């Protein structure tokens, strides 16, 4: 219990530090770290997103129309609710945890064990400024960009593939899309994905910078703890967001008093 409290406190401190010291991104070496992080988390991950996004979009439309025997309007509504509000940010977050969360925890744990973090301190460079701030900002921004990408691919690709596979006119679906889509959904998912990215980053950084021992065995353990806790944090944040914004959580099992 004490360990959980310590980890939560440590991660919250790292997040507070990243917000307080965001100005350090103007320092050239930190700006370079930010660019690297955005490249590895955002740009290099886009390839994996395309197929997953398109498959999910098609699956939702095909399921709603073919299995539930619903019309195109309901299919598009489901697509918007599920993909824009929930699945888009979650898929991007899971991808970021799987690729960058593990990479950041492993890299920082290795740096800590090999003495690179101490070396930074000796150069009068705060390791949290140099290592944590660009990772938190880079992963938050990249996660938001990947979420937008998933949403575009899943909604757009889903509608196009559905029109080809299950014979629903594309124009009809597009029409419903523009009628039903709300800017609130986009703002909601953008805020959520920024927070997801930041949460994944601080958890990965915390475990990377606190590997538990100086042994090389501590590196995979740090990565495992980072992945497990980041997944848990993302799920928890998702429930909190859904409850705060739409008044429902756990797929409608919990509803707010209106």
């Amino acid at each position, binding site marked *: 219990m004490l360990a959980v409290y310590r980890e939560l406190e440590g991660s919250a401190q790292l997040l507070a530090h990243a917000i307080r010291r965001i100005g350090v991104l103007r*320092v*050239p*070496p*930190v700006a370079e770290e930010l660019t690297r992080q955005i490249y590895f988390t955002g740009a290099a991950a886009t390839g994996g997103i395309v197929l997953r996004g398109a498959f999910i979009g098609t699956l939702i439309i095909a399921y709603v129309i073919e299995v539930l025997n619903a019309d195109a309007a309901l299919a598009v509504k489901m697509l918007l609710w599920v993909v824009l509000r929930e699945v888009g940010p979650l898929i991007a977050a899971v991808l970021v945890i799987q690729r960058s969360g593990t990479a950041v925890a492993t890299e920082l744990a290795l740096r800590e064990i090999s003495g*690179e973090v101490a070396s930074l301190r*000796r*150069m*009068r*460079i705060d390791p949290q400024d140099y290592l944590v701030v660009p990772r938190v900002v880079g992963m938050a921004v990249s996660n938001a960009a990947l979420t937008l990408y998933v949403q575009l691919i899943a909604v757009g690709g889903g509608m196009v593939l559905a029109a080809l596979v299950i014979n629903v006119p594309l124009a009809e679906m597009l029409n419903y899309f523009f009628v039903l889509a709300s800017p609130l959904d986009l703002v909601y998912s953008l805020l959520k994905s920024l927070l997801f990215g930041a949460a994944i980053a601080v958890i990965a950084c915390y475990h990377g910078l606190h590997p538990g021992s100086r042994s090389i065995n501590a590196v995979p353990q740090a990565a495992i703890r980072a992945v497990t806790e980041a997944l848990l944090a993302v799920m928890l944040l998702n429930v909190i967001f859904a409850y705060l914004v739409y008044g429902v959580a756990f797929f409608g099992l919990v509803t707010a008093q209106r």
Partner: protein
Amino acid sequence: MILAYRDVRIDAPGSHRVRCTDKEEMFTALYELESRDGAPLVLFGCDVGKVSDAERRGLMRRIGFVPANGGLLSNLNAWENISLPIAYHAPQSLGGALAEVHALLNELGGVDDALLAKLPDDMTLYERRLAAYIRALLEAPDLLVVDDAETGLGATKRQRAARFAEVYRTRFPGGTYVEFNG
């Protein structure tokens, strides 16, 4: 008094080779500016345990380090490693630093400019120490602490590493060069 910790006492500028009983403890104390078991650590006449944070930062600025493995960041090439403290603390002087690095490489010899593009994993032990040495010199330290500059090197590289003290003293006549051997 320039440096005093346990059985080590250095009270005059110059080049010193010190054999200490627990080199690791000495390096940790100097690296972290924190003594073990409350043993007094004196640097430039100040007891480190009694100074304020600002004074500590001031002391850190006056000390340069050359760890035995170089202490380089593994994802940065030699030039990025060498220039990191300057790029971080005083980016405006980065232009002058490159000329200084070339001058030092010429002076010490044995490596060409291609070193600057190498990642630490591709460097030899001597190259890693040289990069750490140049990085330290660019900050003009009053005290340069070197961990076994020659250990683990072949005869030619050992001769070159032996010149670290001389080059430092030529550039900073009032400075103190301390090399610790185990």
